[in-house]
């Protein structure tokens, strides 16, 4: 298979020697470059956000190294492999989510982890961010697109099942990311606009129901706090007030690296994890934020290009959904930290410290690179 890929790549780019190497490696150099810029910049901000604790930066660097290897491995697999494995991975994922409910471990009242002897502890919900869009793409791409209503319904059920399981952990943030990944597949599959309108109508009906029956007290509190953070300035509103203060006091060009008073004097909570963007905004100002968002935008553009030029429906749907999931991370995190959205535990992708999300995200980029580098001649 690799010989064929090599042939295809060379045939499309007969002039560029170095690019030949990239296609042998199944790496998209543009995407890789953008990701490395993001990761490197992230480590610089993290050094400040973690209060100049080099150990934290080192740990994150190692984690990102591992994530790059994972990306590389995923990039080597042909999209057809993912497609073939989708149902099995989905079944295994749902089973492990059920297992988490029964025998999972966790902290702060949430069971999110599965500790299987002999394997490293892992978070099945994190894997579902990849597996759910794969499964939805697998299912929808088996049929004519745009899908018929009954296929849409089945696809939505495929998305809904793991979502519910994850909500029950409870982990609203991950559940929303998994759900949106699946929904994006359905959208990219060409679901009719009328159905989309109906979906939004449904959501607007479901939202109040969610409020009363699904959301936990602390989650409701976060929403209420968003609407009026001053109502509880030392309690739930603290995070939002302090992060807005950090961002706002940064001004146009920021207070300078390591000079952020909000983060270094410990006013800003979670300054090296979920709220790290506030550190960046405080120290590098509006200019820094623009640069960050532009890098993100370039990554998204490249990924959408990869999706648009993919050869088969499965690859297209999967690539598009993974790209949009990445964007949702950005939007929810920055929106939350700047007080536009309620506080949901979503990290800033590839910048926030810790979590398995970095590995999952890089795996997703691996899938995208695989999609891009395993194309065959017939598409030309």
């Amino acid at each position, binding site marked *: 298979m690799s010989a064929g890929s090599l042939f295809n790549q060379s045939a499309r780019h007969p002039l560029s020697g170095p690019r030949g190497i990239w296609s042998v490696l199944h790496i998209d150099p543009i995407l890789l470059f953008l990701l490395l810029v993001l990761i490197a910049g992230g480590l610089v901000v993290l050094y400040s956000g973690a209060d100049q604790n080099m150990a934290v930066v080192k740990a994150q660097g190692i984690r990102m190294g591992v994530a790059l290897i994972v990306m590389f491995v995923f990039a080597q697999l042909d999209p057809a492999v993912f497609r073939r494995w989708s149902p099995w991975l989905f079944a295994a994922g749902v089973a492990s989510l059920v297992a988490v409910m029964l025998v999972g471990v966790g902290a702060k009242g949430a069971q999110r982890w599965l500790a299987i002897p002999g394997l490293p502890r892992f978070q099945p919900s994190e894997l579902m961010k990849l597996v759910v869009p794969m499964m939805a793409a697998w299912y929808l791409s088996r049929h004519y697109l745009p899908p018929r209503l009954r296929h849409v319904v089945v696809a939505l059920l495929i998305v809904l099942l793991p979502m519910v399981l994850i909500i029950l952990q409870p982990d609203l943030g991950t559940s929303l990311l998994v759900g949106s990944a699946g929904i994006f597949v359905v*959208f990219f599959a*060409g679901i009719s606009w009328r159905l989309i309108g109906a979906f939004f109508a449904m959501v607007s009906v479901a939202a109040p129901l969610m409020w009363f029956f699904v959301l936990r007290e602390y989650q409701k509190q976060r929403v209420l706090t968003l609407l009026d953070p001053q109502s509880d300035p030392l309690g739930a509103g603290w995070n939002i007030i302090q992060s807005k203060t950090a961002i706002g006091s940064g001004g146009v060009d920021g207070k300078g690296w390591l000079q952020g008073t*909000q983060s270094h004097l410990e006013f800003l909570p979670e300054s090296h994890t979920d709220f790290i963007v506030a550190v960046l905004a405080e120290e590098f100002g*509006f200019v820094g*934020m623009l640069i960050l*968002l532009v890098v993100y935008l370039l990554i998204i*553009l490249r990924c959408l290009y990869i999706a648009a030029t993919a050869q088969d429906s499965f690859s*297209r749907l999967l690539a598009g959904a993974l790209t949009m999931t990445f964007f949702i991370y*950005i939007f929810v995190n920055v929106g939350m930290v700047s007080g536009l959205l309620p506080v949901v535990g979503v990290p800033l992708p590839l910048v926030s410290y810790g979590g398995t999300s970095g590995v999952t995200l890089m795996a997703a980029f691996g899938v995208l690179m695989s999609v891009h580098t395993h194309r065959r001649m017939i598409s030309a």
Partner: protein
Amino acid sequence: MPWGEFKNIVAERRLFQRRAIVMLLLVLVLLGLLVARMYQLQVVEHDIYTTLSDKNRVQVQSVAPPRGLVYDRNDVLLAENRPVFSVTLVPERVGDMQQTLAKLHGMLSISEEDMERFNRRLLEPRRPFQELPLRYDLNEQEIARLAVHRHELPGVEVSAELVRYYPHSELTAHALGYVGRINRQELQRIDPVNYAGTNYIGKSGVERFYEELLHGRVGYQHVETNARGRTLRVLERENPVPGEDIRLHMDLRLQRLAHELLDGRRGAIIAIEPSTGGLLALASVPGFDANQFVTGIGVEAYRELSTSVDKPLFNRALRGQYPPGSTLKPMLAIAALDSGAVTRDKTIWDPGYFRLTPGGRPWRDWKRGGHGWVDLTAAVAESCDIYFYEAAVAMGVDTMHQYLSQFGFGEDATLDVAGALSGLLPSRDWKRAVHSEPWYPGDSVNLGIGQGFMLSTPLQLATATSVIANRGNWAEPRLLKEVKGDRSIDEVLPTGSHQSIELENPDDWEFVVESMAEVMHGSKGTARGAGRGAPYRMAGKTGTAQVFSLAEDEEYDEEEIRERLRDHALFVGFAPVDNPQIAVAVIVENGGSGSGTAAPVARAMFDAWLLGFPAEGEALVIGSSAEASR
């Protein structure tokens, strides 16, 4: 591949690409929204958040001024400030209070009292993020242990503050008073700005009277703090104005001697420098350790002090109101001479008793059988009661009241002695108002020997004696000798309002003083034993005051009850006669006779002041307990 073969690949790709463009637009719109939000926060509202951020990190802290020091007349330090470390908790920052307290219990010794006080303060209304003290006066090991475990104990801080310390506490407690934590009533009356950083306030004595002077002016500093309130650096500072150091008239050596002389007894000694009114000694025995009260005394220790039958907390010198007894006779002699009730030569026959009317109730002399023929000098020297009974009746209450009030009886005549009581100088009006009875001639008879309704504090007796020593010139008793700083003493020391006592014949002063000298040096003087062998001449008057009642307590054996029912021994006097340097009043509770118990005490005070103090070691042998019990 069962799919794909019949699918319209090109159409599907076009469909996807259209959708991708929609998504791209969505991404651009939402990213634009984020950019707009950042623009709003960072550019439009930048100033608001800069202010918020500065408010976050910069706090204005008040800096307590160091309290002024107190010295005696020889610049011996009587009250100083020493650093004391205490552990405080900020409940808002302590995660798990129970767990934190349990951990602290493992590191420090925290008594039940500490816990009780802490829990009480925890429930009281307070400012948010206010530090609550848990234990004071940590030792070095405890401070080190806390420092090691500091990271496990959020909201727990070790704070240092300067706390008042009295190096000669037992000796000076009653004269200096003490400071203590500001309580709720005091919070109402103090200036909240000036006391913003202060935890202590003068509760009694000099500390209370000169509170404003000793306290100083509060300072401020702008500090950068982190979210846990820990101060990181000082940005700007306006230094506090320290309290003024002051010097008292008191001589610690004399004060110590007074305590030693009364050691093991209950009583008071006042010594005044007549020319200035300066209080050289102000001793009330037993004393107590005022340092205990500074950071808050334990319930048990306080109960022990307050219920002790010796009443160590009771300031006998200023607040003990005793019948002055015969010590009032010199002042009455002045009154009788000047009012014309007696003459210098008037002689009476003292048969040992006195009757207002023939066959009426007899008032007895202290000497069974009487003194025989006595004139005024003899009446003072031998303390003849009959002579003064007659003189009192001749004068009447109004005259006596008029003269005695000129000597400062019935009022607090001090300038700066906080808490001094005014005793009781009876009059017709007073008796009618309080007892709803007219003044009877018999009441005058009693007043003639300082008994009956009359009450006086030892300080008042010393004051009146000092006025005699000054031949009628007033110098109100005062503690403050000098303010060491910029302020002049006239600014802070109230001015006296007493007029000198002008007599028809000013030579009467010398006459009465000479009769007082007879008490000490005359062949029949009641205190001739105490005056014997002195290289200088002194004047004095002995007295005894009957103990009218005693709160009888079953715990004491008969002998002790009998001891506590004995008369109080009194003595007033000054020396040398011609150029008085020191006037004293001595009371020894249940001391028996003034001549036997109180007069020798006064002699020792005179000797020390006029001839020099015994060497340090000797003095300590007599009354080492005052030093050792600290």
